[in-house]
């Protein structure tokens, strides 16, 4: 079997920055977008050696708002990828879309370019909450967009939701969940709002202007989410991801199970041959890099070869985010040490207090363990 790799393509543009967002994205004119895509194509071709002897099992166009690009640009990116990499026949190819900036005709073009999965950022079905988040679309616009996607034949759609946001109550959250699950998307991601430094929300929080649900309300919201989605045929397979039968996101699973991936574009993260790095976040520097700089990897920042210790840490704290957990056997095969020898004390502690469960040769977080995952996972850092 050929080695499997994944590609992540970062599109750092959006119409308007949302109040909670700290991803690398910003508004930009058409010219910048075009220049960016040209440079991206160059970077893709300069990175082709990573694909030697490997098959691409997933491509993810994330952002920002990739659907903001003119559809032709997306086609160009896809053909550059196919030109430089061997993309598997049944590869999962996802593009992120925002309802406000997506037009139906783009979906048809995406389809032709081989994109087979859409990830739509809805966040909430309540218009008041959307406004509060600084989103520029309404629930009705999302509906139109979702229907359009279905009509174009997309049969693998993810809907992103955020909970524990200002103004949200258990009541409105239930409504959002009900409405979205009725549409039967294949996949639903539910993220808790995190107030990140440097965002308008952070500023508001510092000033005490942000009314957020308290810990107990949040825990109730989470518990309801798990329960409701479970009853409606969505299986939780990772801390924040739920999927219907057979629709788990291949790309995301790759992140949690140490599949090598190449991040292309501004600020994108990569993991290849045990090395992690990030591209520069400076748009000017990115755009000005010449062929030679691209080939020599001079845009790479924070390049770091993982030690065996760090590889073990990642194996655990990433793998345990998956509901099915980690396998003792895999650990032994990979590192030549038994998991027990390295993590015996921690495992025992959490098995004992019920935050972890052991089934056969697999360790996983219990439901309560998933709720307290930071507490548990931080204990798997060595030294």
């Amino acid at each position: 079997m050929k080695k499997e790799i994944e590609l992540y393509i970062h599109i750092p543009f959006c119409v308007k920055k949302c109040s909670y967002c700290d991803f690398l994205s910003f508004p930009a004119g058409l010219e910048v977008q075009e220049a960016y895509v040209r440079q991206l194509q160059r970077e893709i071709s300069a990175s082709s050696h990573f694909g030697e002897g490997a098959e691409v099992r997933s491509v993810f166009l994330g952002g920002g708002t990739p659907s903001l690009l003119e559809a032709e640009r997306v086609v160009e990116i896809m053909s550059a990828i196919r030109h430089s990499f061997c993309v598997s026949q049944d590869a999962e190819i996802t593009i992120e879309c925002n309802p406000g900036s997506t037009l139906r005709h783009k979906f048809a073009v995406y389809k032709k370019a081989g994109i087979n999965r859409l990830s739509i950022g809805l966040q909430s079905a309540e218009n008041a909450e959307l406004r509060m988040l600084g989103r520029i679309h309404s629930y009705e616009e999302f509906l139109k967009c979702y229907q359009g996607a279905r009509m174009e034949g997309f049969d693998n759609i993810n809907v992103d939701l955020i909970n524990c946001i200002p103004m949200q109550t258990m009541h409105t959250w239930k409504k959002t969940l009900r409405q979205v699950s009725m549409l039967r998307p294949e996949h639903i991601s539910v993220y808790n709002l995190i107030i990140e430094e440097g965002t308008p929300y952070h500023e508001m929080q510092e000033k005490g202007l942000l009314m957020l649900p308290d810990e107990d309300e949040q825990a109730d919201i989470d518990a309801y989410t798990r329960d409701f989605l479970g009853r409606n045929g969505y299986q939780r397979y990772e801390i924040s991801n739920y999927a219907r039968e057979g629709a788990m996101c291949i790309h995301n699973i790759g992140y949690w199970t140490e599949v090598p991936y190449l991040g292309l574009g501004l600020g994108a993260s990569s993991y290849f041959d045990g090395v992690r790095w990030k591209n520069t976040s400076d748009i000017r520097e990115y755009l000005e890099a010449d062929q030679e700089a691209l080939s020599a990897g001079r845009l790479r920042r924070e390049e770091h070869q993982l030690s065996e210790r760090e590889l073990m840490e990642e194996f655990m704290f990433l793998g345990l985010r998956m509901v099915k957990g980690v396998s003792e056997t895999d650990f032994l095969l990979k590192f030549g040490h038994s998991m027990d020898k390295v993590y015996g004390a921690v495992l025992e502690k959490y098995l004992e207090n019920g935050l972890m469960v052991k089934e056969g040769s697999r360790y996983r977080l219990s439901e309560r363990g998933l709720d307290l995952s930071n507490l548990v996972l931080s204990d798997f850092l060595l030294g």
Partner: protein
Amino acid sequence: MFLGKPVLRAQSFFAIIKPMSNNINQNNIRNFCIIAHIDHGKSTLADRIIEMTGLLTQREMQDQVLDNMDLERERGITIKAQTIRTVYKADDGQEYILNLIDTPGHVDFNYEVSRALAACDGAVLVVDAAQGIEAQTLANVYLALDHGLEVFPVINKIDLPSADPDRVAAEIEDVIGLEAHDAPRISAKTGENVHDVLEMIVKKIPAPTGDPDARLRALIFDSVYDQYKGVIVFCRIKEGRIRKGMPIRMMATGAEYDVVEVGYFGAGRFIPCDELSAGMVGYVTASIKNIQTTEVGDTITGRDEPAAEPLPGYKKVTSMVYCGIYPADGARYPDLRDALEKLKLNDASLFYEPETSVALGFGFRCGFLGLLHLEIIQERLEREYNLDLVTTAPSVIYKVHKTNGEVIDLTNPTNLPDPSLIDYMEEPIVDAEIMVTTEFVGSIMKLCQERRGVYKSMEYMEETRALLRYELPLNEIIYDFFDALKSRSRGYASFDYTLKGYKPSKLVKLDILVNREEVDALSFIVFADSAYDRGRRMCEKLKEEIPRQQFEIPIQAAIGGKIIARETIKALRKDVLAKCYGGDVSRKKKLLEKQKEGKKRMRQIGNVTIPQQAFMSVLKLDDE
């Protein structure tokens, strides 16, 4: 031990002043200090005096200050010398040597202040033209007058828009009884009329007296430790002479040395000379390795021809406030020990001894002159030695009279004997003076009442301000009294106290149980009638301070095994990072690392982790 602002003023005017010959006429020496309430401008006036007598511009002064500091730093000398000698050419045409002996203004250092005052012949009283007399002003003036010093007032900050020098002059006359109609009205900031202050120093402060040919008696008023020279003793020669090579004896400690060097103080620098004689202020080094042998207040005399009697007023300094200091990271215990050792070299009044706590591991029980002293030491340990500390609630010394007649000085609540073995207990009482604007008199009286204060008297200073006198138990002051005072007077109250003595009192030990385990480091001694209330508030406070954990945690307060209050910390329900950072694993890891770091900074007590600040909770129990 002078702990005010670091003083490195006008570093080099000894460059202008040639080392003086030895035959200085006593009549041309003035030894004085400046006394003031905090922030009334003591340091600024000192700066100005130095600048004006040293004939340096402000600019030059700044430059030289910096140069000198770097030099000193390279040599590793601690500069604390807040005593400065300068030369002033007065309007009468004569040159005078002015020895400015700076004093710390805080009640904690009362004894040190009194020794510094004993080295002076007069004092300049600085009063803020806007704020008028404050509690420390009074305390300092009385102390200076007690020492027989000539005190003359100076009204500072006349450049402020809110300045009212006439009112303040009247206040000084009414309240203190010092003549103030001719007090210089100055702005130390701009230098306006500072010349008048210098003339007053020359005219009003008496020249020193004392027979230079008598047997040596020199008063130690401070000392610093230098790694090359050993202890540098600051002294005022009252009688006789001291010179290089002379064998000396410390009269109280009995230690004997041979003088290596004598000299006087350039600003921030020591300038050697051949001899110091009666009336002069200077320093002595004698390869003294142990600062304990050179106690402030002791008298230096000659070994071969000793004086018959030491100078009056010496007393052994004792700690008033104790607390446990522990490294947040137990592995840094040796670093904490080294740091305390080094601080002790420069601060004879710091006391410490090793102690062990079930909750906190290895640490030290430390004794301080007062709360400010405690805070200074804590801050220096954290800043200069980069230590992360867990400090337990401060405690005073209780006298425990046991039924077998034995009396214990109790400095750590944990060591309280079984109640059945205790006959009765006594606690230290202070005389407190609180100066407050009249609108807040009511709330301050209420505060004192709550703190078991016994009302003594109240005087109106003028229509808007009053001086309250209360007798208060020291243990009511050391918790959060300052904060409460400030918040209940919107910052307008000032406060001073002196130790009065001990009084029998109904005291109990309040224990705190976290998850049903007693945490020794959280125990404290409390007045029996306040125990329920304190216990309840302590539990509430700890509920706020201790984060939710994997299971429910009861917090209980108990007296002798009987539970008097309880709170419950609910189990943690959620601690999750759901966000996906597009494959940015290092970011995720950083967050986990931060969490792990956070865990390290907590104390593990049984199954429960307790954050450092929780151990100081008892300090924050005031309701209002």
